[in-house]
């Protein structure tokens, strides 16, 4: 993977807006954002309603993903271009799903909704309805998804990257500051995890930093590119953004997103927790 194969620019989207095999999909934390205005031709995926299992804490399984994309009119050989608000957090999260279920050509719009809006590019409230398809998903690729036991075994062995803000990492906050305080039972981080906030990988306008800046960022923070890496945050969407940077832009092998993330780890009984600004010991 590389920047060229994983990212597209706003200009690219404008140039390909009439291509029948390019599907634009908006994914937001604020699911009403699409309804108020979106890029012409884009369809919406609701990260909670469409992408999460309604009962268990897990995301949609292969059959549910297949049914969802068939219903929304996505074909297996379409080029899927994802974008959204929050600096593409939820779009990156959806990108990770598409990869996990084996979609071959999926891209992120660099800068997402924010760059688009700051450029004063056009948005529409006209809703796109695509004809239903017969989408076939692959078995989930667990090479990109980490579960808690593997995370426990990775302490002091693999790169653990906590991509939350410094205050969440240190245990001073339990959730991002624009959300009311809630979630895990305990604050802090997984011992030995390096704190490299997702935001350091992005410019103010939401576009990704250059390859050289990104490599320097992770290397300076102690990530050993010769080792396997697991990224986590609070619920797995910001760490999908960092997974995208490491695995898709920089082309690192063996990078997993731990989507259970702090809401799971910080509520488990008996697991080690580190407090404060230092990574802590294994």
């Amino acid at each position, binding site marked *: 993977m590389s920047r060229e194969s994983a990212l597209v620019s706003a200009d690219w989207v404008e140039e390909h807006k009439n291509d029948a095999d390019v599907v634009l999909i908006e994914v937001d934390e*604020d699911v009403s*954002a699409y309804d108020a205005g979106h890029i012409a031709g884009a369809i919406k995926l609701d990260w909670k309603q469409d992408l999460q299992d309604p009962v268990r804490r897990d995301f949609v399984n292969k059959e549910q993903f297949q049914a969802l994309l068939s219903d929304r009119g996505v074909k297996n050989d379409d080029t899927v271009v994802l974008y959204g*608000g*929050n*600096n593409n957090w939820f779009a990156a999260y959806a990108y990770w799903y598409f990869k996990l279920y084996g979609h071959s050509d999926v891209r992120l719009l660099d800068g997402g909704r*924010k760059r688009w*809006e*700051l*450029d*004063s590019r056009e948005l529409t409230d006209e809703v796109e309805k695509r004809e239903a398809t017969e989408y076939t998903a692959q078995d989930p690729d667990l090479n990109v998804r980490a579960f808690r036991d593997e995370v426990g075994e990775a302490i002091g062995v693999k790169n653990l990257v906590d991509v939350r*803000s*410094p*205050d969440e990492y240190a245990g*001073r*906050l339990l959730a*991002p*500051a*624009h*959300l*009311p*305080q809630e979630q895990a039972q305990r604050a802090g981080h997984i011992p030995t995890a390096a704190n490299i*906030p997702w*935001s*350091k990988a992005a410019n*103010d*306008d939401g576009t990704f930093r250059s390859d050289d800046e990104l490599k320097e960022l992770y290397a300076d923070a102690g990530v050993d590119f010769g080792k396997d890496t697991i990224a986590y945050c609070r619920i797995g969407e910001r760490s999908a953004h960092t997974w995208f940077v490491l695995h898709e832009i920089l082309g690192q092998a063996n990078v997993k997103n731990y989507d259970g993330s702090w809401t799971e780890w910080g509520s488990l009984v008996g697991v080690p927790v580190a407090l404060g600004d230092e990574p802590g010991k294994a």
Partner: protein
Amino acid sequence: MCGAKKGGLDLKGVDVDKEAVIQGQVLRGEEPVGGAYVRLLDSTGEFTAEVPTSATGHFRFFAAPGNWTLRTLAPKADPVDRQVVAQYGEVAEVAVTV
């Protein structure tokens, strides 16, 4: 943004004693700027959160007590930084002009 009052967002349902609220409005001259982006940076300049403004230009953060910077990005304007102090039991109101 139903319920928004001039001078600040409605605080109904918010327990201000337990939250260090930072909120305000982005303006261009007298006009509210909807769809601007307000970033909350901590005392070291590190990104903590970001929200788009509502149609009436309003934004709100639930922060921790301390010193913060609000960085506002709006179309056709340079970024604007504003310093703000947050405390439990107090609502920090900030008007940002771009």
